[in-house]
């Protein structure tokens, strides 16, 4: 409808509503009776002034005023277009035509009511409800005010407070701790003993227990920097990266499958995992580490960058790619936005402690993040290619990791491959050529045979037609029978589907059918049958109870359908005059048989006796094709024999054959016939699968060459791939209202969080996504980045963060217990060039770290959660530490770095079934993490859900863990290995001490030894304990709290 028409209509409606004419009154009456009550009852709850007041207005749409019902809500569509129901969004909604717009949402209105609305709109929607809408006031965020929130302020270098006890502190950071303790009248716990300290530090930095030797060395080392030496040794160990890399992998929600629907293997994710482990081992500066994970592919390469380093930068962006994804989502656009949301949510919390995901559908309820900022950031990742497509099942992008060494190796092999291919091709060409040449020498015979063949078919067609036309002459010598008209038997007739238009004989199981056929004249006949068969279904033919042929109907024609029906010569037989009984016998169902035809053989038929033994079927077929073409081609070099080709009734005599042979023998190079015989596309063209015509010897030779080729090909190194992102189609997004891409609001040019960056949004270029700029923005003057990371480091050392919500530094996060300490650490971190290892040295050298975990009743009453750090937190071993400790204690751990242990092809579906590596002996960090099917041992020990960022693991104790210790073969294997060392040792006391040392890294006291010996003896009721008794003792010690907890 034109705008003018609309205006006129609405004016008209307005007049109707106000003029007080009879019609207008009727309209208003109609509204009052039929429409208003429905609006009140079914719509106002969410679309009225009342609901707006309660904050329950939906879709920014009010239906309680004439003005508002005729305007648009959030969707941008007019609710009521007077006079035009089809353009009235409200009418569409209540009609329940569109599954995405169903109103009222819970129940459709009565059909009669829907019709009332239609009528009302057609009447011009008369509506007496006066009143104006207030302009929508958007509650915009005051960024200046928001910036004052603690975590958004730039960290300053705080001055360490002065304390009363001046002898306790070992590092400046201790002063912040001590200050608060003193103010609360608490004293720090005494220093932990050396044995506790080395166990604590070793697990802390490597996730493994110290060896007995390491403990002893430390105990013996009385130098003042003995502990620093231990820390340095541990930081230099490759196992450090395995422990701390794993911490980061928790944050990066690392896994080896996408999880969710259609769970596919991320076989290349391990490169990112190993990248992280290496980054920690090499103490990669954290700012660099952050930038690489966001935009490694775009960073300016450092001077003299090695290929490995270049690869590492690309692999690093796996951070963005290894998240959980719903790869089977029919709504591809939703999938894309979901993946971007997952990236933003993860990186927001990982690097900034900001819950960006909360601003996807509406302005963040608590933090100063408007949806516009969310979509400004989302635009960066929309302009980045994470996925190759968003179909079902979607494919994530992988980047090839090429290197000059690899290319060298590949091109070397490629050369060999090419050479071998040449050898192979030459052999093939040579051999085929010989075969074709040999066939050419029989050109005349091929022609004759093809001629006979097409004439035969033409004759059949002719005969059938004649019979059908009741030509008596033909019926004297030939008999045509519809197969479905069999005389007796268990066959079936079908005139539909497979038999459509022709009528056929079919059956459903083993079949025999009989035909009583009246033969006008005794003599020799050829039996032709017309049938279609997708698979060969051979049968037997008996005539007058004599087995004539035990292999009839063997041919296949492509399909079972009528258009595949063909005539086949099945047998040549002698028949008596009068009735003959044909009996067919199949052990299977029949092929789909249309007709039977008996043609009397002429007594001197040369065509039947032409010798074709020396001819090859493949070339024969090519010749038949050629003749079929020749039929239509008036200029064919075969024109000379046109009459024979076209007329099947014209007989071929002895002389004809001789003539042809002589004619072919005379051919000169310039003859068209010579050309036909010799051209590459003619009847002697090299057949596609010419290899089948090779002699056995040649076939073997060919096979050998092919095997050689495949052996060489296998040597070609594959180009490794990494899950990584790259730049995509650069674009800005509009704000998606309520997170729905179907309803879009204002444009949100790509940019950053406005609460952090004050100046005008630093607009990334039109050519790049802005990822690189974003990565730099994160690591330069962003007050959150360093704070969030030092808090993580603190948490992973002490079991609790200074901010106890490590992934949330927003308003709903918990405020830091020691804000100045946090800033001091953040400042130090940046100043030390973001070195994580340096932070370990500082923290582990602190008096806070050296405290024991001793319980103090009074202190516990005041501060049970240890928020003041009056002691060190005792902790349970983490999932990986449990398994690794059991393996190493049982002497069966394999300590090297691993690549991918999964035995899957790229993108193969993963299963939940038992995998052999779970019972293997590699360090746990290298076990594949299957989303939605996490290894049950890890699951039991709070490994957590690898689908989401996990800055802090929970630490529960429960029955499942106890059952694991009691029954799992990881535990029994370790006990058995330990028991085998003790078993048979005549010195039970000595063996017991050894067992304690092996498991708990300390000697038992006298009482413990005696108790153990008593147990062993009682188990055995004899002096010499058995292997079983030792196993029990070992298992008990492995299950002990002392083994499972770190003081």
């Amino acid at each position: 409808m034109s705008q003018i028409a609309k205006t006129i209509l609405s004016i008209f409606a307005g007049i109707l509503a106000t003029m007080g004419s009879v019609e207008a009154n009727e309209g208003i009456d109609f509204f009052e009776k039929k429409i208003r009550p429905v609006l009140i009852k079914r719509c106002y709850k969410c679309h009225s002034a009342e609901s707006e007041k309660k904050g329950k207005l939906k879709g920014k749409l009010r239906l309680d005023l004439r003005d508002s019902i005729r305007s648009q809500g959030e969707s941008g569509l007019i609710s009521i277009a007077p006079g035009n129901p089809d353009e009235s969004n409200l009418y569409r909604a209540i009609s329940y035509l569109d599954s995405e717009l169903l109103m009222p949402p819970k129940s459709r209105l009565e059909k009669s009511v829907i019709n009332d609305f239609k009528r009302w709109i057609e009447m011009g929607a008369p509506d007496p409800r006066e009143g104006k809408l207030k302009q929508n006031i958007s509650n915009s965020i005051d960024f200046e005010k928001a910036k004052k929130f603690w975590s958004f302020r730039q960290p300053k270098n705080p001055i360490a407070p002065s304390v009363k006890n001046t002898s306790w502190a070992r590092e400046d950071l201790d002063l912040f701790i001590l200050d608060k303790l003193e103010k609360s009248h608490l004293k720090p716990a005494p220093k932990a003993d050396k044995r506790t300290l080395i166990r604590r530090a070793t697990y802390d930095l490597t996730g493994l227990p110290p060896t007995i030797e390491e403990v002893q060395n430390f105990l013996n080392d009385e130098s003042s920097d003995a502990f620093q030496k231990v820390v340095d040794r541990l930081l230099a160990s490759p196992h450090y990266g395995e422990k701390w890399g794993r911490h980061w992998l928790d944050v990066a929600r690392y896994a080896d499958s996408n999880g969710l629907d259609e769970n596919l293997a991320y076989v290349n994710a391990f490169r990112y995992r190993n990248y992280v482990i290496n980054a920690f081992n090499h103490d990669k500066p954290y700012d660099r580490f952050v930038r690489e994970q966001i935009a490694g592919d775009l960073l300016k390469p450092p001077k003299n960058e090695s290929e490995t380093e270049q690869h590492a930068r690309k692999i690093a962006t796996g951070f963005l790619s290894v998240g959980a994804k719903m790869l089977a989502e029919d709504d591809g656009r939703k999938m894309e936005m979901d993946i971007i949301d997952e990236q933003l949510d993860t990186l927001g919390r990982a690097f900034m402690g900001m819950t960006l995901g909360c601003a996807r559908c509406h302005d963040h309820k608590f933090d100063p993040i408007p949806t516009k900022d969310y979509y400004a950031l989302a635009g960066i990742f929309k302009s980045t290619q994470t996925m190759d497509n968003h179909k079902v099942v979607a494919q994530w992008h992988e980047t090839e990791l090429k290197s000059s060494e690899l290319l060298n190796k590949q091109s070397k092999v490629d050369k060999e491959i090419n050479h071998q291919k040449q050898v192979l091709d030459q052999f093939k060409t040579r051999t085929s050529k010989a075969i074709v040449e040999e066939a050419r020498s029989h050109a005349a015979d091929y022609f004759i045979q093809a001629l006979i063949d097409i004439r035969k078919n033409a004759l059949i067609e002719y005969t059938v037609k004649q019979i059908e036309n009741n030509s008596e002459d033909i019926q004297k010598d030939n008999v045509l029978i519809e197969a479905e008209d069999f005389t007796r038997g268990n066959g079936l007739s079908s005139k539909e589907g497979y038999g459509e238009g022709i009528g056929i004989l079919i059956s459903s199981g083993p079949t025999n059918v009989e035909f009583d056929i009246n033969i006008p004249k005794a003599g020799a006949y050829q039996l032709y049958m017309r049938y279609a068969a997708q698979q060969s279904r051979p049968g037997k033919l008996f005539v007058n109870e004599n087995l004539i042929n035990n292999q009839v109907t063997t041919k296949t024609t492509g399909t079972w359908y009528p258009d595949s029906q063909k005539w086949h010569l099945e047998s040549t037989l002698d028949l008596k005059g009068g009735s003959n009984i044909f009996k067919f016998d199949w052990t299977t169902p029949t092929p789909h048989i249309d007709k039977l035809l008996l043609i009397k053989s002429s007594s001197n038929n040369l065509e039947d006796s032409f010798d074709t033994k020396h001819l090859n079927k493949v070339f024969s077929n090519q010749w038949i094709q050629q003749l079929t073409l020749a039929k239509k081609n008036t200029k064919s070099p075969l024109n000379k024999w046109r009459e024979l080709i076209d007329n099947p009734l014209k007989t071929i005599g002895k002389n004809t054959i001789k003539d042809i042979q002589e004619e072919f023998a005379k051919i000169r190079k310039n003859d068209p016939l010579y050309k036909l015989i010799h051209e590459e596309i003619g009847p002697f063209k090299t057949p596609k699968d010419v290899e089948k015509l090779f002699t056995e010897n040649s076939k073997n030779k060919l096979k050998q060459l092919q095997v050689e080729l495949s052996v060489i090909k296998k040597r070609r190194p594959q180009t490794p791939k990494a899950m990584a992102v790259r730049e995509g189609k650069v674009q800005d997004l509009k704000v998606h209202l309520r997170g729905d891409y179907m309803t879009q609001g204002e444009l949100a040019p790509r940019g950053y969080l406005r609460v952090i960056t004050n100046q005008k949004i630093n607009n990334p270029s039109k050519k790049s996504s802005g990822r690189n700029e974003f990565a730099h923005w994160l690591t330069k003057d962003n007050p959150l980045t360093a704070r969030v990371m030092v808090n993580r480091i603190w948490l992973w050392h002490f079991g609790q963060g200074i901010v106890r919500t490590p992934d949330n530094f927003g308003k709903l996060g918990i405020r830091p217990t020691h804000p100045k300490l946090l800033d001091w650490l953040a400042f130090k971190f940046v100043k030390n060039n973001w070195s994580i290892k340096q932070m370990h040295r500082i923290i582990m050298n602190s008096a806070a770290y050296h405290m024991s975990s001793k319980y103090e009743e009074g202190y516990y009453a005041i501060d049970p959660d240890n928020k003041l750090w009056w002691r060190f937190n005792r902790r349970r071993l983490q999932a990986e530490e449990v398994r690794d400790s059991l393996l190493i204690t049982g002497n069966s751990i394999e300590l090297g770095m691993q690549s991918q242990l999964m035995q899957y092809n790229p993108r193969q579906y993963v299963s939940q079934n038992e995998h052999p590596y779970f019972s293997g002996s590699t360090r746990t960090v290298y076990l594949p993490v299957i989303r939605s099917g996490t290894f049950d041992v890890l699951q039991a020990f709070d490994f957590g859900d690898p689908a989401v960022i996990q800055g802090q693991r929970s630490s529960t104790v429960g029955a499942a863990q106890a059952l694991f210790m009691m029954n799992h073969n990881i535990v029994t294997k370790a006990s058995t290995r330990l028991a085998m060392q003790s078993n048979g040792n005549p010195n039970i006391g000595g063996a017991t001490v050894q067992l304690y040392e092996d498991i708990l890294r300390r000697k038992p006291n006298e009482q413990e030894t005696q108790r153990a010996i008593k147990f062993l003896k009682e188990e055995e009721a004899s002096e010499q304990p058995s292997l079983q008794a030792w196993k029990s003792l070992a298992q008990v010690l492995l299950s002990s709290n002392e083994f499972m907890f770190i003081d």
Partner: protein
Amino acid sequence: MKKGSFICSGYDTPPISRREMLKKSSVGFGSLALAGLLGEEAKGYSSDKENPLASRKPHFKAKAKRIIFLFMHGGVSQVDTFDYRPALQRDNGKAYPGKKPRIVSSATGDLVASPYNFKQYGQCGQWASEIFPNIASMSDELCFIKSMYGSNSRHGSALLELHTGSDTFIRPSMGSWLNYGLGFENQDLPGYITFKPTGTHGGMNAWSSAFLPAHYHGVQIGTNATPIENAKIPFIDRNGKYLSHQRRELDLLSEINKDHLNQRGYDTNLEARINSFELAFRMQAAAPEIQNIDNETEATKKLYGMDDPKTRDFGRQCLMARRYSEAGVRFVQCSQGYWDAHGGLKKNHRDVAGKVDKPIAGLIADMKSRGLLEDTLILWGTEFGRTPVGQGSDGRDHNPHAMTFFLAGAGVKPGIAYGSTDDHGYYSTENRVHFHDLQATILHLFGLDHKRLTYRYAGRDFRLTDVHGEIVHEILA
């Protein structure tokens, strides 16, 4: 009487139900037994408040204490089972007169009538197709919701939305929320078990506690490929070790751990871990007893269809579900696939229905006769329905816009059908019930306000129904 002893092996007394025991406790055996029954595990925690497993009071009086969820994996066609649509039968081969959804899983053609015959059952006159004769005969016990709908047309997303409320993110599952809200009824057993769930389509996430404490994670008993006879609680198999032998080990362990604890003073984690071995030991005795159905009568086994190879597996799932539920396991789930009939629907739905029809009817009858239906809820449902339009002549596509569920037992009206779909069964149109609404209603039946049952994670209060969910009061008794 020691808690849980009725299921320990080696006792000659016939098993008595927990219900009976509670009755006895309240009339004669006194409060001691009751206290032992409910509070023993509180040891090791300074208070029940600290014990994540302790039984907790609901927000208001609960109608249901336990639930058995019979999950039909793959997408049951509503129009071939309980949602009889005469117009569909009439309009076979015609184009669907309405609009098909914008987002679909596969291309579909015209309307395809159900290949099955329908008739009415019971006093309520519930329609059902011929493939569910046994369930249909229980219609007067059942509360059908014919206007269920979800948000997603893919198995994984839809399955997760049904189980966790979210089709996009990993969230705690319904069973985890219930146990988080109410604690464990039986301290010797997990509060949440799932028999033979599918490992695909989200796998573990369907019974995961996600960010809720790990205690509320569902315990998986077998995979969908495990014969039910072999399905066990993880790590529970002692590999032939005698209980007595293990008892001696645990006694030594306990001594060693107590010494360790004494040297260190008070520590709830150390204490809780000491107790966890005792709990594990009891669970090890209790669970196999529940799974051992030798004591069930032949008549009972037959009721569940265990005499027929076709129904034996799911029948055993259902029978074990009753036994676990009876022992106080709050959330028990049984699963049966695979209903995903894009083609060959006629055979597929007849076959799969044949596996579950008798066992489910048997379960409901058995629960009713034992009085268990009074405080146990039974829920039957699927991740989505199927389209009334065909894929070929004998298949239907996924359809999250309409599906039929039924409930029975605690707190729901029996013998009713709530809501309906359009004439051809493509969309839910009257009294529509989203997964979120059903979840809100289930929590309500357990005495929990879905808006108040929250958990703070990553600085935000989460709930099962997110920002959605309206209680369906009309189906409540």
